[in-house]
């Protein structure tokens, strides 16, 4: 598979062979420059760099400008752009300055802290740019609503970064295993989780020499450098772990069921990190009236342990259970002993059968009370590129008019709206039965 670097390198080889002099217009068409999309990178922190690495494999993108309030990120990000395309992008610490000065921009990729997602995305839409914005859309439901309104008013494209929606393994599982071949039978329960190790949940430290001056921090909504580095712990800046980690997976619940939940009941607490504003551990139960029948979905995000299988979503039905995750190794399909045979699906390549597990010892008294262990199968194939790349490819193909967004702002809002009510439910220790107003723009 040819990546962007290979693509450019091969273009240069063609130029060296004399094609430039012979037929420059043909060459221009061949190297994709007629489809060139000028991109502004808004936010070049950790997630911004993840998106940039994924975009660097997509042909036809020109990274024209980079914006970040931290010089360390700004210089590092601009350096990566220069390494890729051979020229420094224009750099800015202020998005308004960027939007005022940069001409010819087509697209903005927003990867700033959550509380800036909505203001930045709205500004870019109003400036006439198509926008790819990281999830969550905002730390508040009002912020998310503002993105939907701005998108629809501007007529521009806005894709939200729920990247599983473009992952071919997820799409295959939904289209072919769950919908067409109904391997789950009737889905009755869903279980999802993201269990993250304590080590990965610590405060992020920083080099004191790289501290941003207090005036600039204050201008952009941070009280100090620690808050800037650890904005995910603060209620005014982020939705906390249920938003950071849970939003991806709770999005899959609604996407696969093709409906919104009717209620949520959550519990959470500062069980280990006593001084953080957000809960470190949250458990939530969503109830759905899905087209196929009622479904109860449990989700937990734990930041104090990695045990229990990491992160995955499990769709549990009367015939089988599909465990799916961005990690192929965490994915599996289990067939109930009473389900129709799946041999034909195996033969046609829809799934792979794993060897049968060992039978429990006959002398084991408890074993006689257990159901037979379900047969285990695997979802075929693995994604052969960075996990965000297909979602970005879908966005840029849509900008070119060759595709439809897999997660536009309105659909993303429908998915994210229930998540905004998890923390309130946990704080009040009460279930919330959704009213239409709570889930609408």
């Amino acid at each position, binding site marked *: *598979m040819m990546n962007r670097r290979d693509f450019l390198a091969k273009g240069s080889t063609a130029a060296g062979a004399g094609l430039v002099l012979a037929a420059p217009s043909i060459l221009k068409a061949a190297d994709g420059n007629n489809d060139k999309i000028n991109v502004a990178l808004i936010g070049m922190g950790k997630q911004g760099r993840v998106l940039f690495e994924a975009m660097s494999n997509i042909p036809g993108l020109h990274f024209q400008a980079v914006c970040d309030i931290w010089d360390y990120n700004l210089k590092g990000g601009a350096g990566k752009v220069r390494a890729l395309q051979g020229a420094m992008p224009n750099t800015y610490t202020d998005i308004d300055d960027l939007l005022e000065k940069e001409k010819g921009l087509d697209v903005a990729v927003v990867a700033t802290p959550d509380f800036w997602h909505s203001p930045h995305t709205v500004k870019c839409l109003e400036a006439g740019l198509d926008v790819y914005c990281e999830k969550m859309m905002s730390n508040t439901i009002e912020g998310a609503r503002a993105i939907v309104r701005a998108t629809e008013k501007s007529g521009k494209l806005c894709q939200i970064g729920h990247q599983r929606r473009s992952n071919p393994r997820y799409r295959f599982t939904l289209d072919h295993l769950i919908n067409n071949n109904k391997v789950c039978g009737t889905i009755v329960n869903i279980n999802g989780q993201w269990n993250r190790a304590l080590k990965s949940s610590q405060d992020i430290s920083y*080099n004191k020499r790289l501290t941003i001056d207090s005036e600039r921090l204050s201008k952009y909504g941070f009280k100090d450098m620690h808050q800037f580095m650890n904005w995910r712990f603060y209620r005014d800046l982020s939705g906390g772990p249920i938003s950071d980690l849970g939003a991806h997976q709770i999005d899959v619940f609604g996407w696969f069921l093709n409906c919104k939940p009717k209620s949520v009941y959550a519990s959470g607490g500062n069980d280990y990190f006593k001084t953080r504003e957000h809960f470190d551990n949250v458990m939530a139960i969503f109830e759905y009236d899905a087209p196929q029948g009622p479904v109860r979905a449990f989700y937990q995000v734990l930041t104090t342990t990695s045990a229990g299988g990491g992160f995955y979503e499990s769709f549990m039905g009367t015939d089988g259970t599909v465990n799916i995750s961005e990690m192929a190794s965490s994915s599996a399909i289990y067939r109930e002993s009473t389900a129709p045979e799946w041999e034909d699906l195996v033969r046609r390549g829809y799934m792979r059968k794993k060897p049968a597990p060992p039978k429990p010892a006959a002398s084991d008294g408890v074993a006689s009370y257990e159901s037979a262990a379900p047969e285990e199968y695997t979802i075929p194939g693995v994604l052969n590129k960075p996990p965000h790349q297909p979602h970005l490819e879908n966005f840029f193909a849509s900008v070119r008019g060759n595709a439809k967004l897999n997660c536009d702002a309105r659909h993303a809002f429908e998915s994210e709206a229930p998540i905004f009510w998890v923390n309130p439910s946990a704080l009040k220790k009460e279930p919330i039965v959704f009213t239409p107003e709570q889930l609408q723009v």
Partner: protein
Amino acid sequence: MSEKNSTLGQVFATLLLRLWLGIRALQTGVEKFAGKVMSDQSVEVDGKAYDPDLTEVASTKAYALDNYSGVPAALKETFKGEPLMMNWALNIFDKVLGPALIILGITILLGVANRVSLLILGLIYVGLTWGLILIKQDSGVAWLGIHVVMVAMALNWANHNRLCILKKW
């Protein structure tokens, strides 16, 4: 001690140590250029390729200049929070580490200026150790300590060195 006084055992011991240190440095340097080549064998469903992004095997290992990474990205992120770690020094270390290990591995294996090569290799291990002390990777510190001891042994036995291209230095 002159070379003539070396016993066969001392010569072999020095040679073995040289080989170990040389191979260790060379291959570690080469591994800095290791990356993955993504598979293009699509999953087949009903006899047809399902999606070009969904392939049978995710990747295979391959080496290329483009893959180079001296200091792993995760470590670089960790160092970002260390007040004593100078960013410019980390950048230099990141760029130089892989090529330096390859060159030193080759010079040690071929016996080119072995004393100087070993000294530089030892200094690199000391530099790496300092970084790991900063981020409290005690097992890594101990591991590198063993390397430094081996380099010191090799320097101490340098008089027993044979099969060298350039004995000086």
